């Protein structure tokens, strides 16, 4: 049986340097398919879909809300041809009802242990409209290595530099942050993978540079310490979401190859200043993720925040505006207060204001978003800062003997497309 897995394209953030990482959802999903299903993968951000290829079933994997309309379009096309389409992934789960109108089936939640039944139902022509695994996620011990072999690795390469590979060591999140849908998607119980299983997967990835995509590693101190301790001998360098603010944990993380973290910076407090300083003290760089437009954010606050980011010497910053994704607390509140003025999912890019902020007009917030990008990168441009971060990892690799030179055969390509140098 031929299963074609498609990852719909979307427009990248304005002002951010364009890059493409190998998607994680599709490769995790592919690992859950029965062995006799032959799976091929297309990342539409980097490749055209061959709609004429003969397939038995199409799977559309969607992570982001801005993928859903394109995903539905692709599905409509295949279904007109009589080919069965199933959806899955974070955005398919968040937009399940609407997605069902374009689907033979929608899979909600985590797929491990569930796909045998789905494929059997398909073969017996009794596919259900919804398969909902949200209430009963698979036992975390059953999560095995992702199927990275379905990726065309050379596409995730910038002029000979291989992008990081993605991996996760846990699911769920005990926090329930205002803008985040993880509480709905992955449950509020933190579910760490057994350290040996996570380590086995990490060790098997043919890449020195990784992105641990766990929601937040800072949820279970002992597990975090055990994971980092076991990672030390692997000599990988990696980025991740927050690491626990504990000197012993940060020390182990640094030894385990922590390269930089994505850390939300939400105010100008001494706590944040010291938090960033402690990362830096351990040689870990910080890319701040800065969300603008919360109800307490005034124009003055946003300007002060940008000055603060420069003061605390953040290595990189990514600015977005609050976006009320379905199944988040932000959605519940803004929807209830009738403050959302666009329900066009293509506008949910996180760089377009789709609601009425409390302290200013939507237009003003939009201007301040660009002010933030421009001011932060005025003296030291984004590319220079990215180069510095890149130098950091090269230094670490040269120090521990794991440095691999660029692939000079791919030097004239960026993400599969020819580049002028």
């Amino acid at each position, binding site marked *: 049986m031929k299963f074609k897995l498609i990852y719909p394209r979307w427009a990248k953030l304005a002002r951010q340097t364009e890059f493409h990482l190998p998607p994680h959802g599709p490769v995790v999903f592919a690992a859950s398919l029965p062995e006799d299903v032959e799976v091929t993968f297309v990342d539409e951000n980097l490749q055209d879909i061959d709609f004429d290829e003969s397939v038995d079933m199409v799977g559309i994997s969607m992570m982001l809300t801005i993928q859903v309309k394109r995903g539905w379009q692709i599905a409509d096309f295949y279904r007109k041809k009589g080919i069965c389409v199933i959806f899955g992934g974070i955005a398919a789960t968040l937009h399940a009802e609407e997605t069902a109108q374009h689907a033979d089936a929608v899979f909600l939640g985590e797929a491990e242990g569930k796909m045998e039944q789905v494929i059997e139902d398909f073969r017996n022509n009794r596919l259900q409209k919804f398969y909902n695994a949200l209430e009963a996620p698979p036992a975390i011990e059953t999560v095995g290595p992702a199927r990275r072999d379905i990726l065309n690795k050379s596409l995730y390469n910038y002029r000979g530099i291989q992008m990081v590979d993605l991996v996760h060591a846990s699911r769920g999140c005990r926090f329930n942050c205002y803008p985040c849908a993880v509480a709905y998607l992955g449950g509020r119980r933190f579910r760490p993978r057994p350290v040996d299983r996570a380590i086995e997967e990490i060790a098997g990835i043919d890449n020195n540079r990784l992105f641990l995509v766990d929601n937040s590693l800072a949820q279970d101190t002992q597990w975090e310490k055990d994971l980092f301790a076991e990672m030390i001998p692997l000599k990988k360098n990696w980025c991740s979401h927050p690491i626990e603010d504990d000197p012993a944990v940060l020390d182990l993380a640094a030894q385990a190859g922590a390269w930089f973290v994505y850390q939300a910076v939400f105010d100008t407090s001494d706590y944040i200043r010291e938090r960033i300083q402690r990362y830096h003290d351990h040689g870990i760089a910080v890319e701040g993720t800065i969300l603008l437009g919360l109800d307490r954010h005034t124009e003055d606050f946003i300007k002060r925040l940008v000055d603060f980011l420069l003061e605390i010497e953040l290595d990189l910053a990514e600015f977005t505006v609050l976006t009320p994704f379905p199944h988040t607390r932000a959605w519940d509140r803004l929807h209830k207060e009738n403050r959302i003025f666009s329900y066009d999912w293509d506008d949910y890019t996180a760089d377009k204001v789709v609601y009425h902020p409390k302290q200013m007009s939507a237009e003003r917030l939009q201007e301040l978003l660009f002010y933030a990008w421009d001011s932060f990168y005025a003296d030291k441009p984004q590319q220079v800062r990215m180069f510095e971060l890149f130098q950091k990892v090269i230094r670490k690799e040269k120090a521990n003997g794991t440095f691999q030179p*660029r692939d*000079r055969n791919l030097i004239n390509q960026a993400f599969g497309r020819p580049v002028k*140098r």
Partner: protein
Amino acid sequence: MQQLIDELKTKIIDTLYLEDITPEEIDENAPLVGGDLGIDSIDILELVMMVEQDYGVVIDNKEVGEKVFASVAALAEYIRDNRPQTADMSG
């Protein structure tokens, strides 16, 4: 000076893993970036690190970088003029 230029040619080949190129094939007065060697801005990043580590000369400014990496001869001259005195053995 010529000794430093020859040394740099070898170091450039080693640092960037340039296959099929010998030191003799590098023209010290030709543009280093965008020329026949296929060196680009990412390579320059690695060369900046090599120069810092091997010669103690820091190049942390884009404008200076552009001048310094104009050619192997320009790079040698910059290193000669800016390296710590005690390490200046190659003349």
